[in-house]
């Protein structure tokens, strides 16, 4: 049972960056905006958090910086696509390419710096309880925070009026505009929220999961998060489940490599990407389900004058 508890803790830890990034993107997409820049925002969030954590000595300042950096980068996306009506696909790609370049540039000074990361909760006595102790109390604080965020987003989207407005805007911005909702302003907020979450996902990687900075350290997790939103057919519960499933796959490849399985490491490293492709194809096969669940205005620009 102890092994089981250990694996569960590790799976949650591996899935958490995907939870943050995919939940943020979910909110953005629910408002009808497709931001393909998740990978770039995660990287910038990671480097910003690491740099601030290294300079200040406090990883929590780093987390705040990561959130801010992700949101700042998403603001660029928001201005381009929402105010200047630029193509969302192209702008999102630009954001990712820019983020990769910017983080590599900023991160050069931090490549072999060591910092004190955020440790798992130190409720020693409680975590020491048999079985339950580790499963309930043994996680990193940012893992708990991601579950709180999930509950908050789920509640917001389906239990509150602003959440309803957000979803309405994603389905039909014209109608929402006609009944007086500030479409562009709400979309701005949704994009900024998504950026902040991506930044937090990057910060989690750089100051909690593996407290170090490596160029391109997100290793495609931003793109996997985008795919997760599609797998989940835009539903928060399934985003959560999918994120942990992929956390498990990533973990399995690490474990297999560490355990000296007689398979070339490259084949194991490919596994999460191949799995993403396969699951994406299987889920998308049902075109009707995708069409019914995807926000109807996803990716389309909106201008009040038509």
């Amino acid at each position, binding site marked *: 049972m102890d092994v089981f508890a250990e694996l569960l803790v590790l799976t949650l830890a591996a899935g958490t960056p995907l939870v943050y990034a995919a939940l943020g993107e979910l909110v953005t997409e629910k408002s009808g905006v497709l931001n*393909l820049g998740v990978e770039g925002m995660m990287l910038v969030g990671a480097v910003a958090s690491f740099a601030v954590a290294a300079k200040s000595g406090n990883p929590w300042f780093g987390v705040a910086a990561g959130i801010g950096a992700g949101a700042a980068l998403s603001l*660029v996306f928001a*201005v*381009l696509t929402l*105010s*200047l*009506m*630029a*193509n969302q*696909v*192209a*702008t999102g*790609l*630009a*954001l990712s*390419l*820019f*983020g*990769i*370049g*910017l983080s*590599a*540039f900023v991160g*050069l000074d931090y490549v072999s710096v060591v910092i004190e990361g955020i440790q798992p909760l130190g409720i020693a006595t409680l975590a020491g309880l048999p079985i339950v102790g580790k499963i309930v109390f043994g996680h990193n604080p940012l893992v708990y925070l991601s579950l709180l965020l999930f509950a908050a987003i789920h509640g917001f989207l389906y239990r509150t009026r602003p959440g309803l407005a957000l979803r309405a805007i994603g389905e039909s911005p014209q109608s929402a505009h006609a009944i007086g909702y500030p479409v562009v302003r709400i979309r701005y907020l949704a994009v900024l929220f998504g950026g902040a979450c991506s930044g937090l996902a990057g910060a989690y990687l750089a100051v909690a999961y593996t407290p170090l900075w490596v*160029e391109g350290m997100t*290793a*495609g997790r931003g*793109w*996997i998060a*985008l*795919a997760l939103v*599609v797998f989940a057919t835009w539903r928060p519960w399934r985003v959560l489940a999918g994120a942990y499933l992929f956390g498990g796959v990533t973990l399995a490849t690490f474990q297999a490599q560490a355990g000296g399985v007689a398979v*070339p490491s*490259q*084949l194991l*490293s*490919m596994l999460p*990407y*191949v799995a*993403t*492709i396969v699951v*994406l*194809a*299987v889920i*998308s*096969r049902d*075109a009707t389900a*995708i069409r019914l669940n995807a926000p109807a205005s996803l990716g389309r620009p909106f*201008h009040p*004058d*038509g």
Partner: protein
Amino acid sequence: MRYRLEPRPAPSRAAGWLSPFIAVAATMLIGFALFTALGKDPWQAFHVFFVKPVETRYGVGELLLKAGPLMLCAVGLASGYRANVWNIGAEGQLTMGAICGGGLALLFHDSTSLLLLPAMIVAGALGGMAWAAIPALLRTRFNANEILVSLMLVYVATYTLSLLVHGPWRDPEGFNFPQSKMFEPAALLPNLLEETRLNVGFLIALAAIAAGWVFMAKSLVGFQMRVAGLAPAAANYAGISATRTIWLGMLIGGACAGVAGVGEAAGPVGQLQPSISPGYGFAAIIVAFVGRLHPLGILCASLLMSLLYLGGESAQMELALPSAVTGLFQGTLLFFLLASDVFINFRLRAARVPAAGG
């Protein structure tokens, strides 16, 4: 006085042509600010970045050498983008092209046949096409998003190449480095210009530009693909097959990227190693947009992008600036381009704010 954007009755062609120039100028301004902020003399930095690399004959050769793969990838991507087929995995298709073409060179390592090089180029094109066929198939049969699939395949291709050069294709006499044997002369692209590294791959790239222009501007299929991109409903009504458009868009992109990959392996690299391209496949996305998805525009944009690569290297050596500054400029350029593109469909109008407090 406030300004607001007002939709134009028809897209402005002039704004479309002007926007890349505005974007380049704005990127230069940002560069000026960045160099100043880093405590460098901006004029000297500009000289090092944009003039110094092409002052010599060798430098000009390098400029064209790097522009070749960018041109090839971008012209292939552009034919897809015009049809709203978003292939962003050119980097993976390039890698797969290098694997297939380079694999052939290793298989017939001692051959001196004149046919080897053409066969490698064909193999590279086929490898790139095969890699691009996966997102095309998954998109047309399973409705899977081609952006995500083609991107995931970049990682898979990179790991495949790494697997091969760490394992079966590793040079037994290579001191355990993850590299294949060096290719023999029969498997290398002949030199084009003395005292430079420029090879005939550049001519292939120019031919692709010409072919791309004929295809996009003069052929019926090219026209149909443009219609499919601009007005999917109209294309559907006119009986233009969406499936065929997706397949063509992906395969053309894959073939071009695959040839670019062979060009690298059989050109400046001369062997297979874990990293075949410094991100040409991704930079080509920017080249395609800055070149307005037009072959001639792509020709110019690829030269500019190549200069950015060289400038980054030169700035690293002369000014101790990190070469990552190249990636930063590439992204900034695309941002400014997308921003100035707003004036194609909108114009800025001064709007009178109604008197407040009514």
